[in-house]
């Protein structure tokens, strides 16, 4: 437990991005042998803090970082950090799935070393003994692709810990700090134990762990103390054992659980546009819900809760779904629905990956937006670029795309303008159901407003139904008529009317049940 001297000390850390303050004078202490939680909702500054410590961001002047009493420069390189006793396990884990467990474990030695005679037998037995120290039973020759998500996280943690041990200059006086940045975004409750034991074996040898998470239960199960961030500010550092669930929630949400008030959006009709029956996929569902005509239905939940998977599953963009979708007289089997069928049935899907899945950055804006309506633009001489660009310029001026030059490549537009164009691409097809995943991620405020207005108009005038998955709770509260909150792949709560506010969504995500 705690009680040792300070291991990691962060003082007066401030980070601004333009006018926005992502971190506001945050100071944090992790002591020797301690597991310290870092908790906060999306946008609270957790990731900015970790990225600043890892050297991706340069903080504002005045910040200080000390490791075991020694002042460190900010930003510092990975090698500097490691030598001083600081190692990171980032969210993506940095494993190569095609390689074996042993190759991943010794990746640093293999990539930096100058060996001319690698002894694989010896390396495997060394790997086995390292895993033995942590009570883990991994086969060193197995490929990482065959490991479960949790096992991969454990492997990444062991690797970081071992590299820390090898790189640290002086073991006894600086046993090392391990920063785990949400290594298990979707950790089944039954697996928390494994993680707990592994982390305890690390701290047993004197090391400290900073455990970043958005999951209160995980933090309560694993940590000794915890620090809560909200809107870039440090709210509190608490003893985990003496804090209950609702105590954490009120720190995260920022007020005690009292009254709330939401602006209510009213729909004009009670007609059902789409009905989802028994949608399920591995780790998700079965889910059943309805979307009304002209309704904007939000899907919320912490990362890994499953909300973000629903739009892709409903149109066949992601395979592996079971269940049915009914729209009026038409029934669709979700196991066999393809994006082609979906588009033909006026179900449009705009994925979150803007230049990977939603649009082609190398192609002109005009080609991108005209994609679904090419046949309409066919003239006497066929499909000319001029026809495409004239049409796209009209569409772009309605959607407020700036600069409205359809011949520019899509990648030349800002995130907000590219997204306006891509939303317009689908709205022009007058879909009956529009599926959105993070429609305003990385989009500036003005464009966000414009996209919301476009969606409002299309739902009110055209009766289009919208399903929007997002972790931007502010957006869901402003945009949606109704929000379904997900946890562990299930719908946990439905919020609407006056009960629909940013705070109620956050609370529901963190598992606070409210009476009506």
């Amino acid at each position: 437990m705690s009680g040792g001297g300070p291991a990691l000390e962060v003082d007066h850390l401030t980070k601004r991005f333009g006018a926005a303050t992502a971190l506001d004078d945050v100071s944090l202490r992790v002591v020797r042998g301690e597991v310290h939680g870092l908790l906060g909702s999306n946008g609270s500054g957790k990731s900015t803090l970790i990225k600043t410590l890892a050297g991706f961001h340069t903080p504002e002047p005045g910040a200080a970082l000390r490791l075991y009493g020694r002042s460190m420069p900010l930003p510092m390189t990975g090698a500097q950090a490691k030598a001083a006793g600081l190692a990171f396990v980032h969210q993506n884990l940095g494993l190569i799935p095609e390689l074996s467990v042993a190759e991943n474990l010794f990746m640093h030695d293999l990539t930096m070393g100058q060996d001319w005679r690698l002894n694989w037998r010896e390396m495997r037995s060394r790997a086995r003994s390292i895993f033995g120290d942590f009570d883990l039973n991994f086969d060193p020759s197995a490929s990482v692709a065959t490991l479960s998500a949790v096992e991969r996280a454990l492997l990444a943690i062991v690797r970081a810990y071992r590299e820390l041990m090898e790189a640290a200059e002086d073991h006894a006086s600086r046993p090392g700090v391990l920063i785990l940045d949400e290594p298990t975004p979707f950790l089944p409750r039954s697996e928390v134990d494994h993680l707990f034991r592994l982390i305890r074996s690390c701290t047993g040898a004197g090391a400290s762990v900073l455990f970043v998470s958005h999951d209160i239960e995980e933090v309560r199960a694993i940590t000794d103390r915890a620090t809560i961030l909200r809107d870039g500010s440090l709210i509190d550092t608490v003893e985990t054992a003496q804090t209950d669930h609702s105590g954490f929630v009120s720190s995260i949400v920022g007020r005690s659980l009292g009254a709330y008030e939401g602006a209510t959006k009213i729909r004009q009709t009670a007609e059902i546009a789409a009905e989802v029956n028994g949608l399920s996929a591995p780790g998700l569902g079965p889910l059943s819900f309805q979307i009304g005509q002209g309704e904007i239905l939000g899907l919320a939940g912490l990362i890994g809760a499953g909300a973000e998977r629903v739009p892709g599953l409903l149109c066949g963009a992601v395979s592996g779904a079971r269940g049915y979708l009914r729209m009026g007289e038409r029934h669709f089997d979700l196991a066999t629905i393809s994006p082609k069928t979906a588009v033909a049935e006026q179900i449009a899907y705009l994925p979150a990956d803007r230049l990977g899945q939603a649009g082609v950055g190398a192609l002109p804006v005009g080609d991108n937006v005209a994609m679904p309506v090419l046949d309409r633009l066919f003239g006497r001489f066929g499909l000319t670029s001029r026809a495409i660009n004239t049409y796209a310029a009209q569409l772009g001026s309605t959607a407020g795309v700036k600069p409205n030059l359809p011949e520019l490549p899509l990648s030349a537009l800002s995130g907000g303008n590219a997204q306006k164009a891509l939303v317009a691409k689908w709205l022009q097809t007058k879909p009956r159901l529009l599926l959105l995943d993070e429609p305003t991620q990385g989009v500036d405020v003005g464009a966000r407003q414009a996209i919301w207005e476009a969606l409002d108009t299309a739902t009110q005038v055209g009766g289009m139904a919208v399903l929007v998955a997002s972790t931007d709770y502010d957006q869901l509260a402003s945009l949606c008529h109704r929000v379904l909150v997900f946890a562990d792949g299930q719908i946990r709560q439905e919020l609407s009317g006056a009960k629909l506010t940013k705070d109620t969504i956050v609370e529901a995500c963190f598992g606070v049940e409210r009476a009506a």
Partner: protein
Amino acid sequence: MNMTPSDPATRAREEELTKRIAALEAKLSAIESTRAAPLKDWKTVLERGGLVMAWGLLILILGAFRPEQMFAWNSYATMLGSNAMIVVLTLALMIPLVAGDFDLSVAATMGLSSMLIGVLNVKMGLDIGPAVLLAVASGAVIGAANAFFTLYFGIHSLIVTLGSGYFVAGLILWASNSNTIAGISMDLVNVVILTRFLGVPLAFYYAAALTGVIWYVFQYTSMGRRLLFVGLGREVAKLSGVDVFRLRAGAFIASGIVAAIAGVLYTGMRGAADPSSALAFLLPAFAAAFLGSTTIYPGRFNAPGAIIAVYFLSTGIMGLNFLGVDSFVQNLFYGGGLILAVSVSQLIRGRKPMD
């Protein structure tokens, strides 16, 4: 961090500000576009027309040494005709490249088509017309097989077509007993190479017509646009409701057919079919396809670019032959010309990494 203040006064103020920002942005972009336009146009012209200019320059330079040959229409008339089948083979390669797939079997397909004409027409006494049709059909079959293994099993096209190319090369040797078959109907030779229009063998006009057709399909039909999306953003195309599977399969089959047509021209040019020489045209076709993608529509595989690239390369080789340089120069020029030309176009593009 609350972006949507609820009280109306703040909200109105924010909307007002948003409008003013938008107006300023519009002004700014108008200023930027007027200022940047001339420079950008000059660069665009250079980029799009670069290869044509280089071609002209090449003729002038070589002409300085051998004016009597380099400035004679006859040289070009012959060159245009005798390289027509490389143009067609390049087009065959280009179709799957646009869709994001490689087809390494085009040269073998061309060889099989040629050999089938030889076997059917000479050994089995079939009329030349049906023989040509069957040869072209063989290309469709190879393309369909490539499509099946690539798409149904999800194997990378490079592997499938490498294998099918070797397989077809084996079929050619089998069908021909490793012998050259001469004495193919003069009707074919007549309509391919002996009949000339403006001094140029008809083979060139066939290749040019096919270039036009493919250019039109890619540039002016929705199928062509969709194929472009399939090649550059397969996921985007799929999510936009495009039948990616069918378009890629179609590209493979079209590639097989066009490669087989190249085989018909090749046979007509020589009046004979030999079992191995066709395979040597794979790399020149690749060189021309990539070189062609740096011109006319830079950054995209395109038919006009392909035909210009083929004749740019063959002009260089012709000129060097006039200078009396040995035959190894062909390889030097194809290889060196490709790397040099692509490097120059990368410099113009500002060295954006290519895929």
